[in-house]
């Protein structure tokens, strides 16, 4: 089983990102589960969402305490809360940032990667909403789910031009990260 935890702020679409990942995994023929951390929903407040992908039906309901993969939508959260808590040593931490991974000086043995997801989203989607871009990046960096399944899930969720643009952002992020796998 692969467990993913997403750290974002209310309004950034952390829950949608987890749902898209799980939905795409489902369409890839895997079993999956996505759920939010159920906080009071406020714009800007730190939020978490969770996703599990497995070859068997997912039964557990506990929150993700030892993630294989972390997505950090807002790097300012790193100093505010213990985002890296429980991250597996052979795991991956993906951060939306234009900085180099080393600049964050994170105390982890896991691989740390960055992608300028907000910039990509601004350029392709025209808005600084980068949750779909980060989903594409995670799949590029890990090979967890096929990019076609992610794009399909994104377009099912956002029909029409919005979905198409988001799917383009997914592809771009996927291609960028795939090279570094």
């Amino acid at each position, binding site marked *: 089983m692969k467990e993913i935890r997403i750290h974002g702020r209310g309004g950034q679409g952390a829950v949608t990102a987890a749902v898209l990942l*799980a939905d795409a995994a489902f369409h890839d023929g895997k079993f999956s589960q996505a759920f939010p951390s159920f906080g009071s929903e406020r714009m800007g407040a730190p939020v978490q969402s969770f996703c599990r992908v497995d070859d068997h*039906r997912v039964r557990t309901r506990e929150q993700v*305490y030892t993630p294989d993969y972390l997505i950090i939508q807002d790097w300012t959260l790193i100093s505010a809360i213990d985002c890296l808590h429980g991250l597996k040593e052979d795991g991956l931490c993906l951060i939306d940032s234009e900085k180099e991974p080393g600049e964050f000086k994170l105390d982890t043995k896991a691989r740390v990667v960055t992608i300028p997801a907000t910039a990509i989203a601004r350029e392709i989607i025209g808005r600084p909403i980068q949750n779909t871009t980060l989903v594409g990046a995670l799949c590029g960096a890990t090979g967890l789910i096929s990019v076609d399944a992610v794009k399909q899930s994104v377009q099912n969720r956002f029909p029409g031009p919005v979905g198409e643009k988001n799917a383009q952002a997914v592809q771009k992020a996927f291609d960028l990260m795939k090279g570094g796998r």
Partner: protein
Amino acid sequence: MKEFIEGSMAVARGVAVCRPHVVSAYPITPQTHIVEHLSELVADGILDSQFINVESEFGAASVVLGAAAAGGRAFSATTSQGLLLMGEVLYNISGMRLPLVITVANRAVSAPINIWNDHSDAMVFRDAGWIMLFAEDNQEVHDMHIQAYKIGETREISLPVMVNMDGFILTHAYEPVDTISQKDADDFLPPFDPVVKLDVDNPLTMGPLGEPQWYLETRYRIQQAMLEAKPVVKQVAKEFKEKFGRWYGDVIDGYRMDDAEIVYVAMGSICGTIKDTIDELRDKGEKVGLLKIRMFRPFPGEEIIDALKDKQKVIVLEKALSLGASGMLSDEIKAAFYATPHRPEISSTFAGLGGRDISKTSLADLYHKVKGERQDNMFVDLKEELV
């Protein structure tokens, strides 16, 4: 058809194929998505039903009471404070023997205000004459509604059914659900054919004054109907399996019970986490199992005794307690064992109140504590520094 949907949508779709004539509900977290999805299905013309907006849960319960009294199939959903506000009407619904279905997205009760999951809301109404079912996952809760209508509408039962699902943990979780087609639903669930109904051509009064010479017998009849409901619940589960191939146990369900010496007993979504915990403990050589309680009312005492009588220890893990007494589930299990010669040691434990996450680590720690000695009214993960 296998779909990847939210738990609330799984409920809405499971209800919609039952073709309710009337849906009435008042939005309250974490139930809101259920009635939002249902109102969309009605607005989109997929569900031919009257969706009646109301000013409160008291109004919603009253509307579905009236709809069922008029011979309609009726549905509502609520949680927590909303369920409490329905309280007076809930007793009227069962007293008038109206077999409607209400989904409760289980949530803690104020104060302090807490929108998160536990079973404190539903357990308040364990004495109210409602059949009470608890679902472990979103497939089960999808499938439970069509079973609920079939059980409640069985003429000799004619009682309302409360379908319980853990708020947020299930309502807001996305997972694969094999949805029931309209055709299959129509094959499985016959139209509602009530024993009596309000009819302007044949006027009658329902729920009038029950004087002392009548009232006691109404309680006797509800009690009898409750006892008769148990084989009906089992039969409907069996019919469902034959038709749809899915089985969750009937009134209880065991997991790795055969050679288990210590057994968890629980209701609802935590059973999934417990199963994974059991697999991990088994890998380390521990003989541990789970008894899942699918039906709390009528209480499956005989089935529970049969499942637990040869076990050494039982850990009853409850998401509610009767303040000043103990856990409702563990008390009733203990009471059921009163007349039996062999009883396991029973620990009453409370976990997850107000949405506190229950981890596999906590569940395994609890197992080892109970293996050492019996735990009595133990609060799992209690923060000693706060008390």
